[in-house]
Structures are given as structure tokens and as C-alpha cells.
């Protein structure tokens, strides 16, 4: 497959694969019930939402950018799904609302970074605050319950024997794969991070494509919002806050570099699973979720340090 041969940023066995193997090995040994079929399928199912976010985050990070607002935007879109589907009785309208809001924030982020030239981490930090605020405002700080059955069913339904979220995640992966490796857009994503000047020499406008990257992030946040509400069977004003961190962790652990315009989509997927396995394993060991977060944080720092080493050698 072209991707693993040509796109892998590492010329030896990818670190994330090793990490994943180690994690599975360790938890398989010491965590009770880890290797059971029920548990593994649970981990994979729970990873689907993160996958939907980590895929566009990979693209954004490849452009030497970052989207810190993703978690807050997902929370907002999940609230939109809840509120709109509750009000109209239609899951599809809820999804539409979520997507509109998601793309809206994506456009805002893209505009701030590409046109106003504000450094991405500050721009998305600001929009994080904005999205977080909107979450509180539209929900008035309360959970939104009593949403139509159709929404909840989306999470538990199956298609061809697989849970719908997993199917959607797989489709998303396929789409992103084609996007990154077989379209002009994907080519330009590499250029945005690797050598932006080359785009200008070629007569293209970097801004347009950069905004596109952030808009796709918003779109995916919209879709992820649907699944989030479906999973919780409610809309919570703080549910998704911090998901951007897991997404960034997955991308970093997966081997995508923050500074050179190199990205490995499959690595991100492995990274998502690695993060999921880490959390799940620690969970089974009765470690509180707070320490899980700390561990993921530590993992990110290690991954970044290694990435820095690699780019300097």
C-alpha cells in the first residue's frame, strides 16, 4: 500500500506501533479483563469519536498549526444536536445544525490564522474560550435531556455487523486517506507545512487551503458531536472539553511532526488506539481518570521530545 511505504515518516518500525504493542502487552498481563473480546471492542468503539477529531487534527498539525478549540467546539456541536433534535424531533436537523456550527468555527479559526495571521495556538485558544462560553450560554449550564430515540440509536445501531460509529470512523479514515494522498488539497497540506513558499512560487494562495484545513476540522467536530450526544443520550455543557488534547496526543504519538509538514494518517489512528488503550488499561487498574489524563500528558511530552530529537538529527 502506497501509504505505509511512502508516507511513513520513520524509516524504521514506527514508534507508535512499538508503543501500542508494549501497552497491549503490559495491560494484557496486569490488567484484569483487558484482553477480553468485550473489552477490546469497547475500546475500539470508544475510540471512534476521537478518531473523527484526530484525523483533521493531523492535517492541521501538518500545516504547522494547531486547533485547541476542537474540544470546546465538539461540546458545542453535541449541544446543538441535543437542543435542535429535541426541539424539532429530527436527528438529521440536529446533525445539520451541528455541522453548520462546526464549519462556522472552522472558518473563524481558518480566517484568524490564514488571513489575520494570528499564531494558531493563540487564535484557537481564543476561539476555545468563545466556544466554551457559547456552550454555557445555549445550555444555561444544564444538561439537555429527553432527546429523540433516533439519536441514541445511532450509537448502538449496527451496519453490516459493525457498530455504526465504527463504520463512520472507517469511512472517515478512507476519505481522509484519499484526501491527503490523492487530491490537490492533500498535496498542498504537505506544502503548507513543508515549504509554504513553494506554493506561492506555483501561483497558489496558501491562505485558501489553510482555511480549508480548519474548516474540515470544524465539519468533523460537527459529526463527532452527533455521536457524542448519542453516546451520552444527552447534551452536556462540558462533556468534550479536553478532547482536543487527546486528539493532539494521538497525532503526536502517531508520529506526525509538528514542524516539518510530514504526516502519517495511519499513525494517527494507531495513536488514537494507543491513547484509548492507555486510558482503558489504567481504568481497569482502577486508576482514576485524572491520572489517566496526567499519563497522556506525559506521553505527549515524551513524543514531542522525541520528535524534536528526530528533526534535529
Amino acid at each position: 500500500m502506497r501509504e505505509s511505504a511512502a508516507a511513513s515518516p520513520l524509516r524504521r518500525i514506527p514508534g507508535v506501533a512499538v508503543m501500542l504493542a508494549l501497552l497491549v502487552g503490559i495491560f494484557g498481563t496486569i490488567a484484569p479483563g483487558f484482553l477480553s473480546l468485550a473489552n477490546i471492542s469497547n475500546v475500539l468503539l470508544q475510540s471512534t469519536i476521537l478518531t473523527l477529531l484526530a484525523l483533521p487534527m493531523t492535517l492541521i498539525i501538518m500545516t504547522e498549526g494547531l486547533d485547541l478549540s476542537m474540544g470546546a467546539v465538539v461540546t458545542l456541536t453535541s449541544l446543538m444536536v441535543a437542543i435542535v433534535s429535541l426541539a424539532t424531533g429530527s436527528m438529521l436537523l440536529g446533525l445539520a445544525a451541528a455541522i453548520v456550527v462546526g464549519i462556522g468555527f472552522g472558518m473563524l479559526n481558518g480566517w484568524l490564522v490564514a488571513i489575520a495571521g494570528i499564531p494558531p495556538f493563540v487564535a484557537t485558544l481564543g476561539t476555545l474560550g468563545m466556544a466554551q462560553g457559547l456552550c454555557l450560554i445555549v445550555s444555561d449550564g444544564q444538561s439537555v435531556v429527553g432527546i429523540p430515540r433516533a439519536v441514541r440509536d445511532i450509537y448502538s445501531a449496527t451496519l453490516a455487523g459493525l457498530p455504526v460509529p465504527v463504520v463512520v470512523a472507517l469511512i472517515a479514515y478512507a476519505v481522509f486517506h484519499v484526501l491527503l494522498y490523492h487530491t490537490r488539497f492533500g498535496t498542498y497540506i504537505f506544502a503548507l507545512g513543508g515549504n509554504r513558499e513553494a506554493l506561492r512560487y506555483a501561483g497558489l494562495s496558501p491562505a485558501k487551503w489553510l482555511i480549508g484545513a480548519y474548516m474540515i476540522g470544524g465539519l468533523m467536530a460537527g459529526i463527532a458531536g452527533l455521536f457524542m450526544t448519542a453516546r451520552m443520550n444527552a447534551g452536556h455543557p462540558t462533556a468534550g472539553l479536553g478532547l482536543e488534547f487527546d486528539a493532539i496526543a494521538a497525532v503526536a504519538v502517531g508520529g506526525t511532526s509538528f514542524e516539518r509538514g510530514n504526516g502519517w494518517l495511519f499513525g494517527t489512528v494507531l495513536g488514537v488506539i494507543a491513547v484509548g488503550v492507555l486510558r482503558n488499561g489504567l481504568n481497569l487498574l482502577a486508576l482514576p481518570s485524572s491520572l489517566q489524563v496526567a499519563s497522556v500528558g506525559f506521553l505527549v511530552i515524551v513524543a514531542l521530545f522525541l520528535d524534536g530529537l528526530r528533526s534535529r538529527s
Partner: protein
Amino acid sequence: MNLAVHEPHGESDQGQEHRGRENTGPGSQAVSAVPLLELRDISKEFPGVKALDGVSFPVWPSEVHMLLGENGAGKSSLMKVLCGAYRADSGEFYYKGEKAVIASTADAQRLGIAVIFQEFSLVPHLDIAQNIFLGREPAGRLPGTIDRRRILRDARKVLDSIGFDIDPSIKVDRLGVAQQQMVEIAKAISQNARILVMDEPTAALSDRETELLFALIARLKADGVAIIYISHRLAEVFAIGDRITVLRDGRRIGEVRPAEATPDQLVRMMVGRSIDLSYPRNFAAQPGKVLLEVRGLSANSGISDIDIVVRQGEIVGLCGLIGSGRSELARAIFGADTITAGDVIFDGQRMTDGPDLAARRGIALIPENRKSEGLALLRSAGDNLVVAALRKLFPTGLFEPPRAFGAANDLIQRLRIATPSARQPVGLLSGGNQQKIVIGKWLAAGAKLFIFDEPTRGIDVGAKSEIFALIDRLVADGAAALMISSEQAEICHVCDRAYVMREGRIAGELSRHELTEENIVRLGMHHA
């Protein structure tokens, strides 16, 4: 040679998006009476320096036109004007006899001009094919997709046409420098470039790779492509040049054919000028003690086995072409780069640490890029003047503005820095005054060894002599100076003696009476 590769671009009948010039047909093999491109009286001026002064220059197809000149002669400005990166202040372009305008990179591209710069415009993690066709990818079935098979096929065709046998699906960052250069050339060819400008293309190539490049150039020539080739290597000039133009001080000095010229003649054309420099210089009768001794110094930056000595009261020149390692040597002495072998001994002590130690011991570095490395442009003249002397002026650690102010004003007066006040942001001052501030910074710090890297670059004539007078006073007061400069005339007038570097090593040392421009150029350019 098969030029079928160009056809797809003209064929746009499948809704493919191929930007770039319309195919105006393969280069005419017939002898034309009119040059493919002609520059007439092109001038380009920057504040303080005239980069190009009425340069006229014909470009004929199927020819390698060598462009020779010292550092700062105007070669790179000419290149940038040709590719549309700079807009000429005056003069005209004629394309195939008709007046043309080159005001942007798009204009240049439309005329078939492509420049292969030293810093390539390749995207590292894309493959060769993607790089060649960046912005002009062949479309696949779904809108926005790329036809992978087609792009690889087209890339293969282009690569074949220049004799470069390589798998176009390899990522560009895996290629060596020589290969990346070939990709750049392939990119230019795929855009129907009929005029290729190459800037020191063999600088990073091995002998074998150079041969391959020359073979490629021969093929392109046979194809009707005109090649403008900038080089310092006289051997190359005579090996593949068809025509030689020499620039000096922004002016075109002359045009000769290699068959009719000799290396000495070329050197004389490059350096000969009527010099009317009245730099004051009081040569020390007897140089003082050894202040700096460098033994067998090598560094990762490319310098190897350097031995030099600098004494109190001396101004020692460091010459050589761009890329010969002068700045790298300066940085290694100052501790800004890591040393892999050898010693730097300053005032009897071995220097092992970074720049902060060097600065505190008394070594000063006045960098070539004073704006990005020597000054904090946003801060005031006063801030910049005292920044290296903080510990000396305020040993208790408490910063007292009046005393800093006093020291700054003192320096401003002594060095005659033209600034409305010590509070003026340094970025607003002229080049000469900025340079004085960098020097003043080290004066305040009490430095004993001053390393200058191109001290008079971007400074007008009046300020230049002031700078030299300043340096003269410094060494008269007991300091020592190591001066890197590409202005051979200045080196000859000002330095007690000079080292000439070539490709990372010391090519030779010239004593006072041996110090002539021609000797410098000769030592710097000969191949071993």
C-alpha cells in the same frame, strides 16, 4: 531529444488544470538573428548601493552564458531581476526582439525563464512527481483528485528528457543535494523553461555529480535552451562556457569568448578598478602579543584544520569567496558553533564554552547580518549599546538608567552616531549608524578582540571611512581585529595581513607587501 513531455500541457481538452505557459513550440534550433532575451540598460538601486548600473546582456538559445564577478558585483541582483523577484528601476527587456515586461515571477515564468536557486523550492515530504507538477497536477476522475498514474508517467517523461533516471515516487527529502537540484531542473523544464539561470550549481556537488550536470547542460543546449550560469570556478567557465560576461560594481565590464580569454585576463576584469580610497590607517610598527591563536580548528559547519594567529594592534583580514567558511570560522572562534577538533586560545586561555563566555572574556563578534543577529531592532540605541556591558557597568545587579544613559550618550558622541536620542529605536537608524552601535556595544563591554564579518556591507561611502577610522583607533588602543570582508580593496588598504580561505580551509596567508587584490582572488579561486 524527445520533447513529448510538453504536449499534455497544451492539450487541455479534458478539463485538466494545467497552469503555466502555453506551449509555443520546442526551442527553435535554427540560428536566430535576434537574442532570445535581451536586457538593455537595466538598473536597480537599493538604499546606499547601486546593485545594477545600466547592465545590458543578451541571452542566446543553445548557449551557456557564464556570468562572472566578485561578491557584490551584481550577479545575484541580476538573477533576481531576471526571474521577476526584483523589479528593475530602469531599463528594458526584449523577448525575441519585442519589448517585454518582467515585473513579477509570473511574467518571468510566462517568458520561459526559470531560476534554480541555491535554496530549493521543493516540498520535502512530497515525492518528485508532486514537486515537479505542484499547482499543475493532472486531474483524476473525481473533482479535486490527482491522477496518480498520470502524474508519475508525466514525471517520468520529464526526468527522462533530462537523463535523470530515478523513481518519481520517491520523497524529495530522501534525495541528496545533487538530485534535488535535478528535480528543480526537471520542474523548470516541465514549465517549458527556455532560459535557465543557475546560481553556483556545482557548489555542493561531487566531481562525478558535476560531470552528470554538465552532461545534462549539454543536452539542454542541444535542445535550444539558453543557460545563464553563475560561477566562481574558472575551470568550469572554460570547460562549458560559450560566452562570458564579467560584472563589477553592478556594471557590465565586458563580454568575451572563452576561446579568446585567459584566466588572468578574467581576474583582472573582475577586480580592476580605479581605487580612490582614503581610509586612514596607521600601521603598527611592531605588532603586540598574541591575543588569539587558533590551532587545527574544525567544526561541523564545514571548516577544517584552521591555524591562524592574531596579535594586539593588528587588523588581520580573512578573505575568500562566499561559502569558503569565513563566517563559520568567526562563529567557531566566538563559540557560537560547536567545535569538533582543535583549540581556540584567547589571551592564553582555552575557550571551551558558548558565546556568553567568549563575550565575558573579551571577544566581540560583529555579525554579517547586523539586523537579525547583532541588534534588537525594537529596542532603543541606548538599550543596544549597553546590553553587552551590563555586568561591567552594574556589578551589583541593579540597573541604573541614568548611568546607562550616560554611558550610551558617551558612546554616541565618541562614535559620532547620528541619532536624535539614545531612546531612538535602532531599527530606524541608517545602516552605518546601526553598525556603529554594534561596535559601540562591544566597546562598552571592553572587548579586546573584535571579529568583524563584512563590517561595511550596506553602508554608504562616508560612513565606511568612519568605520575604518574607528577600527584603526580600536587596535591602536591595544585591541586586535579579525576582519572578514569580500571587498578586496578594503582588505588591502586596511589590513596588516590576511588569510585567504577556500572551501573550509586556509588557502594561504598574505603579508603586507603580498596583499593585493589579485593575489586574494587567485588564492581564493584556484582548485587544489
